[in-house]
């Protein structure tokens, strides 16, 4: 059970920040992206996505992709933000 749940804007901000950090850490230039952009277009490779999920689990202690959601349903950055927001709201 989460206490002090983050709001949608905080979730979005955190996800955008962690995506940027992961892409930069892999030696690529900082991506410029919005919620409508495909995750693949941010520069994240599939295993980067796993790293992103792990980083977000450390922040919010949830992993929606363990059971509730199929990662294949997530196409855009906005999809990812909404998934976390809905999952955290329901927790």
């Amino acid at each position, binding site marked *: 059970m989460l206490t002090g749940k983050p709001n949608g804007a905080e979730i979005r901000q955190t996800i955008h920040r962690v995506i940027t950090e992961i892409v930069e850490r892999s030696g690529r230039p900082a991506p410029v992206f919005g919620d409508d952009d495909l995750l693949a277009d941010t520069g994240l490779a599939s295993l980067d996505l796993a*790293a992103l999920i792990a980083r977000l689990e450390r922040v919010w202690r949830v992993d929606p992709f*363990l059971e509730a959601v199929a990662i294949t349903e997530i196409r855009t950055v906005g999809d990812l933000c909404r998934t976390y927001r809905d999952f955290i709201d329901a927790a």
Partner: protein
Amino acid sequence: MARPVVVISGGSRGLGAGIAHKCLDAGYIVATFSRSASPFIDAAQQRDPHGERFHWTAIDGREDSALNRFVRDVNDRYGAIDALVNNAAIGRFGAFPLMRISEIDESISVNLRGNIVLARSCTPAMVARGSGSIVNISSVNAVRGNAGVAVYSATKAALDGFTRALARELGPRKIRVNSVAPGYFESDMVGGLSERQRRAIVRNTPLGRLGTIDEIAEVVLFLLSPGAAFITGQTIVLDGGLTC
């Protein structure tokens, strides 16, 4: 430098306890679980009452949510998981045409599914950190056919396939995945063999004896170590030459 953290499934008895013991001696922090405690667990907890280097929880490896909670707890407690040893297994032996469906389900659930789910929980953080080592405990029965162990063999062979595929997938993130396939070694699992069966195994083994838990654990420790930094996707058979 921080001590490496290893998660070992089924670390209370037999080979699992042997691996846990060996890892503790080598300086690892050991986090393990099993359905029930054992003299080994009791002694380790007495030596380390605050869980600084040894952590055990009672978990049935067939419960996904319990496994996920365990992994999260270990990450919170020690800050990382550097290595995973998928050891948990049960042996349900006997004539296959007479085996109960529930025994088949139990074997697949514990020997295969539980270990895959545990790896699924541990690997995201390894990917995020860009390092890790996984050792799956297979069996000589995964590489040679033997009567009376069909389902057990199927689960262990599947674990070897899992090892190779995962090694390919996670290698680019510096995560190594190997399996160890022990032959017959002194343990509860061979306790059910008749004296005649034991003699036949020893007779067919070029090195002329059963293995020991310590010998198997030593190889697991090596595969986890930096000395095995260029080994991944392999199944190391430890059987005194039985299958050569």
